[in-house]
């Protein structure tokens, strides 16, 4: 753990240094003559209109919201895939004994004595894992199908969806809200 932490610190320092040192050297080499036109925001050569800290398209937010959840769920796939992959390797009867022991040891997190999982047991473990992920993945897919059906995945939204039309036709303030 300390090993990893040290490496992170080392690489962060290296990354910062890699950028900082040339910039510091450049400070003695490069001109620094800012003027009004240079420090202005570029907007195709015209004077800028308004601030750029504006409201941007809500669609970006929807995508982010949808897919952060998706991303987090995928993160749970990784440990599962590890166990399932090992179980499937053990389920192979052709696996040699030494490899079987080593993989079993990893799967059982440091058992007291040497054990090796039999192909049959590994097959059962694999099957359990399969149904586990089927349920987990199924829930994810149902959510995905729902979002797709609702039209949240469409980048170009139909301007007149039925709901909006209904609201604008009746033109009642209560409905519009």
């Amino acid at each position, binding site marked *: 753990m*300390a090993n990893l932490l*040290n490496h992170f610190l080392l690489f962060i320092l290296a990354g910062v240094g890699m950028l900082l040192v040339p910039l510091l050297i450049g400070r003695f080499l490069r001109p620094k003559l800012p003027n009004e036109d240079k420090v202005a925001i570029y907007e195709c050569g015209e004077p800028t209109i308004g601030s750029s800290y504006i409201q941007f398209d809500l669609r970006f937010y929807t995508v982010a919201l949808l897919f952060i959840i*998706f991303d987090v769920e995928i993160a749970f796939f990784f440990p599962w895939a590890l166990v399932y992959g090992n179980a499937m390797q053990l389920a192979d009867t052709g696996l040699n004994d030494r490899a079987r022991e080593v993989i079993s040891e*990893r799967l059982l997190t440091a058992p007291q004595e040497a054990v090796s999982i039999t192909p049959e047991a590994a097959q059962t473990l694999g099957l359990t894992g*399969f149904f586990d992920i089927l349920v987990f993945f199924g829930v994810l897919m149902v959510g995905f199908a729902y979002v797709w059906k609702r039209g949240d995945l469409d980048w170009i939204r139909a301007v007149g969806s039925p709901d909006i039309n209904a609201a604008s036709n009746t033109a009642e303030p209560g409905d519009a809200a």
Partner: protein
Amino acid sequence: MTPTLADTATTIQSILQGWSISESLAMFLAAVIHVALVAGFFGLPAGIFIWAERKISGRIQDRLGPTRVGGKFGWLQAIADGGKLIQKEDLVPEDADGPLFRVAPYVVVVSSLAALMFLPFSDGWIAISLDIGLYLMLAVMSLEVIGVILAGYASGSKWALFGGMREAAQMVSYEIPMSICVVIPIITAGSLNLNEIGGLQSGHLGNWIIFHDPFSFLAFFVYFVCATASCKRAPFDLAEAESELVAGFLTEYSGFRWSFFFLAEYASMFTVCGIAVLLFLGGWHTGIPGLDGILDGPRYGSDAYVWTWLTNALGFGVFFGKASVLVCVQIWVRWTLPRLRIDQVMMTCLKYLVPISCVLFLGAVIWPLALSFSGKTTIWGTPTGERAAPTMRLESISSPADQSPTASTSNGETGP
């Protein structure tokens, strides 16, 4: 266990201490050399591929590309550009958020450099070999997007803001099919340790995970498309999109600060291609049965150190060659296909790549289970030595005796 780069650093440290340098100074120097070795891999591919991109794009467009700097082929062009850029004024717009504007390239560079620390360039040439290496690597690599969003937001320019936001939307959506496709080789290999995944693919061509089953074959291509998009390379370079957004998130950047976004881009192109090579294309193995045996062969005897070093160097050459071919494909794609529109980019991912990768995932899960229940072997092909090489590697990893010490531990192993 084959010496990792951390071991090399320890060795350097012990040599330096032999020269009656104080312990802390030796530790510092060893750490510097250790990180410089990896940082070299950050700068070197970037330099090579920037030149390669110019030459290839030139040829594709029936031009010559750079021809003057450094002789006939202009191979010093990237260095000449660096020399030019360092003299350019470092402008920060008045309306920009100064500190954030300055910090953004650091975030990009640090994340794409730190991702390299989990990438095995060869069997032993890895900064830090972890059982969760692949996962951490993907996590660190995706931090790069924060730097891009920061650059877009802090620039105070509308073009930059749009570029940054597009990048954010694109990245979060393309991460999904990419991660699903990464899970498929993990199921095959049963490991998250990149060294192990690479080691499992020794023997012959049939042992490469891409040829393991039809799903992993297709997963490679889906992964490659997503990897191209995650490096914001054309046809997915919506964040820059010169003809629409001026230069997207880079609009207000200039000089050296600007160039580091590109260095990081090329470095992460190399990184994602390196992951593709390790996960699907056999890592540092040639795919030729006899040669792979040498690469994985037992390393003992008096000249073990030299032997290991040589095989690692050979492995590095193979790995770098494979990754470079993939990078060249990315370059080729960039100069061949026109840029997609933002709605097309999002639709490609959400409505095509995500469902495709989900189907591939399910297929890859069912495949070994079906094989196992029909009494067939779940390991395709016949690895030379009956999986001897991976077993040996597993053995060496699980033995706690020679856990490789870091550059920062004080007493190191003896030199060669």
